């Protein structure tokens, strides 16, 4: 991943846990829309990095007694499925990129857009 700079924004994808299971034809359509979105970000030079986050994981809580739950999302009712880092001229522009996420139109994804704070220069 590139060094964070003022123009980098994180798009974090949250998915609800109770979505009905898509059929293969539906998966194909959804998958195609995500691929097209990723491609379009790359074509416009906005794409910096992306990763999917695995289902496995744990949540450590400070109180009481450092609770460990078997998944990061047990109480959250939604799952962080992955992230994309984009480069954009402003937060507004990054939000506009995030709006292109097909999961928003499909009503199944919450996209959190956060500016990556640059390291203080020495």
């Amino acid at each position, binding site marked *: 991943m590139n060094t964070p700079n003022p123009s980098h924004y994180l798009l974090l994808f949250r998915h609800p846990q109770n979505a009905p299971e898509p059929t293969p034809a539906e998966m194909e359509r959804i998958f195609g829309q995500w691929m097209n979105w*990723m491609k379009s970000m790359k074509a416009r030079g906005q794409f910096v990095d992306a990763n999917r986050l695995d289902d496995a994981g744990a949540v450590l809580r400070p109180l009481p007694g450092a609770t460990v739950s078997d998944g990061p999302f047990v109480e959250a009712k939604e799952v962080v499925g992955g992230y994309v880092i984009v480069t954009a001229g402003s937060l507004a522009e990054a939000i506009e990129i995030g709006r292109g996420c*097909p999961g928003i139109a499909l009503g199944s994804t919450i996209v959190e857009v956060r500016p990556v704070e640059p390291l203080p220069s020495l």
Partner: protein
Amino acid sequence: MVRRTLAPGRFSAQVSLVNAGPPDAPAAAPASTGVANVVDHLFRRESGRLVAILAARLGAANLQLAEDVVQDALLRAMQVWPFTGVPDNPSAWLLQTARNRAFDVLRRHRTLTEKIPAVAPLIEETARDAFAAPAPQFEDEIADSQLRMMFACCHPRLAPEAQVALILKTLCGFGEREIAAAFLATEAAIVKRLVRARKQLRDARIAVDLPPAAELAPRVEAVLTALYLLFNEGYKASHGDSLLRADLCAEAIRLANLLAAHLVGNRPETHALLALLHFHASRLPARTADDGSLLVLAAQDRLRWDRRQIACGIAHLDQSAAGVRVTRWHLEAGIAACHALAPDFAHTDWPHILELYDELLTIDPSPVVALNRAITLARVRGAEAGLRALAGLPQRPLGRYHLFHATSAQLLLDAGRPAEAAAALRRALALVVLPAERQLLEARLAALTEPPGAR
């Protein structure tokens, strides 16, 4: 984490449906919005191939397990590939993923497997062998598994409607929602039908295998019949999504080709069925007018018939002539060929079609064949002859069939008896189900009952 529970007595995939990547709610998914499919039908096609290969390896008793782990692998692909890109060999990736899931299920439920010691090691062993298949055989094995699965799905112990639903689910990768839409049934009814079919497969110990030589002819016949039904579900006058219906027709032809390409299925009657399906498919683009209304054969623009389909039909008709036995598929393909090759409706070789119907009636003395024969007879010997033939048919099942009354109406009109024709049309309208057919009948009735000069 959402997981399918493990029902006692059967293996079920451990499914974590929603906790990664982009698992978008299909309910909210709009119809295709013109976004190009990245890989055309990859998911659906792979679903059918992988379920077949896993079921062939794990046995029909584990069909549910095979379906679950394949669904799981596809979900993973949908979630991961947008981030990682499509792997070089998506099929191998999916098989590997499905295989790992199957192992997980077996491992995690060791306590359960220990309770049925006779079965558990066998399954685990089969599962291990299953994926040791060397790569060069992969494509052959897939084709072979699909064929074996086809014979299992079309086993005579299963009801015909269960057979077609099972084919769509396991070999074509259709979801319950899509099968329900194709059959005009509820999703719950289809789920139930599939559960029953899987149970019958298990209880009757039906092997996912090619039939023994002695049973081959009737078992191939069962497959042909099921594929014909599958095609008809798609070909039926328009209900629901036209893309979905075209898919059903295409799947029936794909599976029939798969059968014809294999030693056990490469028989004259298979080619006869293929010829029939191709001839029918050639008319698909011409069957509806621009406004979506149905067009009968006489009204179709023959320039819109698909010439490539007709050419395929002719090629298979040639190959079907190799045997000595004339089957119903041969005769129906022959009739379809007469229509496909006629320059226009008026110049159709009706006397030849009548001969073929006469012969078909001796093999399949069904009321529907008799009805079609009467229509042809009217073309050859006049409307009154057709009406006499209709009058001679058993009223019992045919009286409840809208096409019987619609046919009567047409012949009565041709015979110059419009009042009786209108009455017959009203009887047809009381029975018709499909909206497009209703529209057609209503238009005819309106034309009959409007005062002259109104149109």
